[in-house]
């Protein structure tokens, strides 16, 4: 059987700790082994197709014709297309995923530069969990999978014996997630796992859609455009200025897809729709595995060649009543990246003609598309109560007449049916939902990266900030988000129930002040473990919303509240109040609030409600600062309005206070 070209192996050298050998003796340079002297060390040179991926860093390959170029002569003709596409994929994955393009990185101070080189970090630095590697190292883990002469032999064996991407990723997962894609600051913020995974995917997409002609000379064709050099395919890699801006022959698309639904949940079983959405997203990812850069339950980002029909790809989602909002960027391979859409729109908005001129000359497009299921021009009444997209059919249940279309009824009847436990009837319950906002995530990563750059004292800081691309970090962040929720449920399983067993973002529990406190504490505990350096304020991509109501309160109203979380922790008590808190506020409130303050809090809240002025209640606080010292301290240190203090107290401490308006 012919061995496969496993593109993921191209950076296997990054898992080798060169410091474990004598570098002079082994003449090791960079992280590839194309010049390694196998004979001298009596090591068997790999012969598999994947070996030729070791040549991907030979810079002269980019400009030379793959038929006649000197640098290409070392490569057997049958593997040249694979290497050609791998180099494109590596560049693309780097520009899509790597935090930064290849820019000279100079510390502002030369002496400092020397100091820094000694102390270069070895493990990945997660912007949201900066001590991640240090903590893992304390547990006995180490980034390098290969760290001796024997291991070096093993590395070459691996290149020969690994037969699939999955085999490599699963066998070396432990090391790949600890190793940065690039060790040098500030590029050390993305994991090698994400980079090699993306390179492999992009390589296979290009290979699948690329026509390889080898009659007289090798010729690679994508979308009817044939090329012989990498530079021809990519074009320049800049979007402004005069240099490196030439048009490339090959274009591709980066598409951000949000899976949305028009449905209103009427009965509890209607939340099966979320199970359906998860299942459809997972099926999509399984079917279009290589096209999917990363995904959550309601978001998929895609790398696509021109011509692939999005509507066809999402057919199953559309047939099941979902609609897809897409932001599609089409650009030359040389400039395509995950945040190019934002850059293009911003340049147009701010009339930056130097940028828009280059982008237009390279035929760069950004579309916002909505993919919808087929819809009738008109529907004769009644329409479906739930989706309001299809004609409804009469259904009777418990003497109540409803009009529900076949699709929504199928969702209602499918899967497990969650019922509140008998002992919850006539009591208050709390629905809660975790949320990860992908737009906020992009913004948060940009901000966190800028802070990281500022901390490094680098000369070209502004350019680096401007060039940051967040996709790989997003992918790593989402992975940690999933781990965090799993950890939450490990701790909260006895207290809360999952209405949908394999959907971890949603839960419900019987209301008591103690239970609310425990859920909030558990959330904070796991959040601090996985995201200790993500502030937990209104900019936080992660949030938790709690909605308290009577057991009979319409489920759709909980979901309406969950749709747009305002802050880090959002709490609503049906028809009474809703408040948002950040992490610091909750911690202060938890540790400082005293029961004796309740009456005073009511008074302050009432003053605030009547006057809407800070001054009036500050005067009141100052006046009572001796008898109400905890409130006075709380307000002077964290400036929380008294209404929010009161609401938190009512929800977590004072059972009977919950019902007061």
């Amino acid at each position, binding site marked *: 059987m012919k061995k496969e070209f496993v593109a993921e192996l191209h950076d296997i050298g990054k898992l080798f700790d060169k410091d474990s050998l004598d570098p002079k003796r082994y003449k090791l340079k960079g992280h590839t082994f194309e010049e390694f002297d196998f004979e001298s060390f009596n090591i068997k040179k790999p012969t598999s197709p994947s070996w030729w991926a070791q040549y991907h860093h030979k810079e002269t390959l980019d400009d030379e014709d793959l038929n006649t170029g000197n640098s290409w002569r070392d490569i057997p003709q049958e593997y040249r297309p694979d290497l050609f596409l791998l180099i494109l994929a590596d560049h693309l994955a780097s520009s899509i995923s790597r935090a930064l393009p290849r820019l000279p990185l100079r510390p502002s101070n030369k002496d400092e530069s020397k100091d820094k080189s000694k102390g270069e970090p070895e493990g990945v630095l997660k912007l949201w969990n900066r001590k991640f590697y240090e903590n893992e190292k304390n547990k006995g883990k180490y980034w390098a999978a290969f760290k001796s002469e024997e291991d070096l032999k093993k590395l070459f064996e691996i290149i020969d014996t690994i037969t699939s991407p999955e085999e490599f990723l699963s066998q070396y997962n432990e090391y790949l997630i600890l190793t940065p894609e690039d060790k040098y600051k500030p590029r050390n913020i993305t994991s090698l796992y994400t980079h090699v995974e993306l390179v492999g995917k992009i390589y296979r997409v290009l290979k699948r859609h690329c026509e390889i002609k080898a009659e007289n000379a090798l010729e690679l064709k994508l979308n009817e455009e044939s090329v012989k050099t990498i530079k021809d395919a990519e074009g320049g890699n800049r979007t402004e200025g005069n240099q490196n801006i030439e048009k490339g022959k090959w274009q591709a698309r980066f598409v951000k897809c949000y899976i949305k639904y*028009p449905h*209103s949940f*009427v*009965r509890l079983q209607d939340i099966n729709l979320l199970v359906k959405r998860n299942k459809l997203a997972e099926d999509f990812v399984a079917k279009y595995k290589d096209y999917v850069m990363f995904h959550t339950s309601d978001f998929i980002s895609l790398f696509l060649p021109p011509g692939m029909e999005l509507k066809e790809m999402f057919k199953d989602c559309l047939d099941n009543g979902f*609609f897809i909002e897409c932001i599609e960027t089409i650009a030359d391979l040389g400039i395509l990246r995950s945040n190019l859409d934002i850059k293009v*729109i911003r340049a*147009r*908005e701010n009339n930056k003609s130097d940028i828009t001129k280059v982008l237009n000359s390279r035929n760069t*497009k*950004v*579309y*916002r*598309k*909505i993919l*919808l299921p087929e*819809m*009738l*021009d*008109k*529907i*004769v*009444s009644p*329409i*479906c*109560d*739930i989706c*309001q*997209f299809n004609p409804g059919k009469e259904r009777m249940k418990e*003497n*109540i*007449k*409803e*009009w529900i279309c076949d699709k929504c009824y199928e969702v209602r009847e499918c899967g497990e049916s969650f019922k509140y436990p008998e002992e919850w009837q006539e009591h208050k319950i709390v629905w809660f939902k975790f949320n990860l906002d992908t737009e906020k995530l992009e913004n948060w990563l940009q901000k966190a990266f800028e802070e990281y750059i500022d901390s490094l004292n680098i000369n070209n800081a502004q350019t680096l900030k401007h060039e940051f691309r967040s996709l790989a970090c997003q992918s790593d962040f989402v992975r940690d988000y999933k781990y965090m929720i799993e950890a939450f449920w490990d701790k909260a399983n006895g207290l809360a129930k999952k209405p949908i067993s394999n959907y971890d973002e949603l839960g419900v529990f019987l209301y008591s002040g103690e239970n609310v406190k425990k859920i909030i504490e558990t959330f904070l505990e796991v959040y601090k473990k996985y995201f200790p350096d993500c502030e937990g304020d209104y900019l936080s991509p992660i949030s938790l919303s709690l909605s308290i109501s009577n057991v009979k309160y*319409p489920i*759709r*109203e909980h979901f*309406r509240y969950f749709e747009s979380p305002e802050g880090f922790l959002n709490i609503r008590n049906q*028809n009474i109040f809703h408040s948002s808190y950040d992490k610091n506020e909750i911690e202060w409130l938890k540790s400082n609030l005293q029961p004796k303050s309740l009456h005073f809090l009511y008074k302050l809240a009432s003053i605030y409600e009547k006057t809407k002025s800070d001054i009036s209640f500050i005067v009141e606080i100052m006046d009572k600062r001796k008898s109400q010292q905890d409130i006075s301290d709380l307000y002077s240190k964290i400036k929380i309005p008294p209404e929010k203090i009161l609401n938190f107290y009512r929800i977590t401490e004072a059972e009977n206070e919950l019902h007061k308006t």
Partner: protein
Amino acid sequence: MNFIKLNVEIDSVIIGERVKGGIYRPCLETIPSSTIRGAFKNFLGLEINGVGIFVKYTYRIKDFVYSVKDKFLETAKMPFVAEYLSPKRNSKIKAEIYIVKNNVISSKLFKDLEFYLGALKSKGFGKTKVIEIEEISPDIKQGFLNVRIYEDECDKFNITVISPIYGYLFYPTDMVSGFYKRAVFENSLVKAPEIFIKEETFYDE
């Protein structure tokens, strides 16, 4: 294209969605063209093309519980909860209604007009008073739509749909019947007079 802008004040109003589960009726936070059409047809006897937007932070959503009476059996049906918009802080809900100006429809028609908007008028909902009238001719911009409008009426409002989010609005044909007609919903990408745009955008078309 010229529009008549009516600044109106409303006591409380129900512009309902479909009833859910036979017992619950959520409320919209926009005034679709179907509601404006119905209101003026009722009050002025004219076919008027208009849409409306509630002014943010002048209202909040509350629940109204009532029982529908079965006139034949003289009995009350199961209690029913309807959401409604209630003014914030003892004031009035503020809204802007935009009407397409033409030879028949002029500003004079609406001077000091009081009319009813939406559902459950018999329970006192929907009383609306025109406070101020302006004539405007807004610029055309690309952006996200902030109203709901029948698809086949978009051209009457000078709205070009680029990437639609469709839904359905009820279209009454007489006092007791009608059908659901395809409509363009909020957040559709359009080129339109800027009054119908919630956020200007710069996408390719």
